[in-house]
């Protein structure tokens, strides 16, 4: 499909429509995803077209994932929609201990894709804003993807379902309607490959999901401000994490900022810095920098929310520090 002005959420819907059409093993399961089309309309109209394969679930996240695991064992390719990523906390056990261990234990892989509407939006508060990628990436056995663009949302969802392994698909709610493109088609990079979202030579920002756009904005500001050329690497998936592309960028720039919207302890930024420092220490011309959300629940009020997560301003501040080191 070539569309003009297609949004990130459109891409997710289209990917699911394509998957349902192309692959009989695919079915969708989640709360309010049927006639209602889902809390974010990611499945709008799909039940009408595929009444047996778009199924409304009870409010039972643990059983939703358990059910999907069973269906996957039986050869299906379920896509489970969490209404918000935050509610997957209740399915944590089935995800990490059942889906994540199954292939290693039994040799039978579990091809489920769990869609997680992730990340903050103003006014969403502590329980509708979380970025849980680090939680799922820490455990063995799960692929964790974090598309930042419309075409990645589309192609990576399709790839996720095609993978034989369980995939945690972190889709960013802030991008749903804000991010537009004139096509669903992109470069179709495979999961596991990072992309240079913006080329530069003075410093590397490693980001993913919505933060890629904030990083690009910050880079634009610094270009304007001081002629700095900041490179932005979009990780695309955080597990596998494309260390090679990150290190190649650091080799060009000598400077690294790891940027994420999740909580600060551990997580993607720690992993990125740790990998670069253990594997490519001597490429660094300055101490690496790190920027995450703050170590509190995501606050409700837009004033607080905006200061809780990294912003172009705070990214610029980090980068200035890094560039002038």
């Amino acid at each position, binding site marked *: 499909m070539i569309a003009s002005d297609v949004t990130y959420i459109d891409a997710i819907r289209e990917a699911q429509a394509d998957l349902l059409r192309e692959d009989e093993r695919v079915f969708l399961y989640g709360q309010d995803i049927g006639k209602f089309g889902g809390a974010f309309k990611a499945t709008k109209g799909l039940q009408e077209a595929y009444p047996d394969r778009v199924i409304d679930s009870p409010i039972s996240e643990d059983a939703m994932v358990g059910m999907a695991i069973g269906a996957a064992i039986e050869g299906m390719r379920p896509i489970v929609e969490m209404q918000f990523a935050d509610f997957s906390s209740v399915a944590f056990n089935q995800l990490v201990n059942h889906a994540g261990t199954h292939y290693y234990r039994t040799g039978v892989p579990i091809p489920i894709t769990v869609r997680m509407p992730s990340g903050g939006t103003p006014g969403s508060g502590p329980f509708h804003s979380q970025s849980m990628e680090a939680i799922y990436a820490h455990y063995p056995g799960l692929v964790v993807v974090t598309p930042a663009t419309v075409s990645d949302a589309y192609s990576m969802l399709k790839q996720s379902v095609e993978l034989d392994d369980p995939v945690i698909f972190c889709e960013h709610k802030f991008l749903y309607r804000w991010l537009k493109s004139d096509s669903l088609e992109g470069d179709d990079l495979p999961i596991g490959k990072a992309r240079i979202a913006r080329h530069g030579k003075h410093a590397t920002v490693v980001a993913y999901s919505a933060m890629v756009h904030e990083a690009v904005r910050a880079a634009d500001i610094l270009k304007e401000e001081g002629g700095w050329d900041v490179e932005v690497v979009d990780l695309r998936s955080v597990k596998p994490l494309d260390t090679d592309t990150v290190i190649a960028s650091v080799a060009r720039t000598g400077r690294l900022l790891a940027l994420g919207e999740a909580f600060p302890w551990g997580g993607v930024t720690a992993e990125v810095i740790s990998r670069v420092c253990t594997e490519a220490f001597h490429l660094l011309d300055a101490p690496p920098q790190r920027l995450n959300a703050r170590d*509190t*629940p995501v606050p409700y009020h837009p004033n607080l929310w905006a*200061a809780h997560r990294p912003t172009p301003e705070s990214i610029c501040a980090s980068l200035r520090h890094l560039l002038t080191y």
Partner: protein
Amino acid sequence: MNGVWQGEAKINAEIPLLISQRLIKHCSVLPSPTLTDADLQTKDQLRTIYRAMLGGRLMEAKLSSLYKAGKIVGGVYLGTGQEAVSASLGCSLTMGRDVYSPLIRDQAGRTGFGEPFLDCARTYLGSAAGPMRGRDGNIHRGNPAEGYLAMISHLGTSVSAVAGVLLARRIKGELEGCVGATCIGDGGTSTGAFHEGLNLAAVEKLPLVVIIADNQFAYSTPSDRQFACRDLSARAEGYGVKGHEVDGTSLEDCARVIGGAVEAAREGGGPQLVVAKLLRLSGHGEHDDGSYVPQELRQSLLARDCVELGAEQLIAAGHATREEITQWSSELRDAVQEAVAIATQEAAPDARTEDWFALSTPSMREGDYES
């Protein structure tokens, strides 16, 4: 709009006037008041509950218009049609003595329990002076130190928390005469947390009252996609708790049955599970027009507006006059207005002076350990 509610007008200024007109239209379907349990159905109790219902309705009407005017960010969730259930519970409890963990559709119950409108307005409007200081919003509020718990979004999780307060009181020898109560929707009963919490409370024989407001939908999901039993009250026996069913549209019935369940718990009868049947008379939230609710359900007895019906019941029983109700209504509307006016003018939280700490102990705080 596809989803106009039969009772849409009820949130405007004319409630008492509407009541009298509907009284005539509806009186054929009205059950005659059964005054069997005279103790509980005192005039005072019904008047108190009704005022809380009206307060809830009017506060929420205001929240809805603030939302539509773009003055509230995030969601607004109304309890329209559920006020009789909610207020009957809230008014049966005493702040400071009892424990209450309301859910999303419990504005009336919160009001009945004694929460000032100002706390509500401040939370929705994100005032730094509110109980949640802009850190959390809308229905995610409370005053835990007073036994008024602040729900998290994850459905079902309050059941065990209320049980925990009660268990603590038992250990301290202070349980006598206390009740803990919480609400949940039909959809929330599908959560593991609900099951574990209710079962734990049953094992401990705690004075816990759980109200299931079975409003036929969980967001857009109808009950037959949520559970397969005839009626959720069939679950009580499986937990070994006392079960009750009640017409959630009827103030009189709710007051009697819910009040009775609270008393039973208070008097050592162990956990009580009350299933109230009604219809959510709004969308899931104010962003949702609820157009998926079938017309026949909107016209069924479940769709009766408990605020209208309650006024009819009060008037018919001679517990209140139309004038009094008009009077309450205007007093409450003023109180709502005042609360909103105050909260609107209060300072928003300031990120620069915000304490960014999730732990209370200074030595456990890491501060900003990023470079």
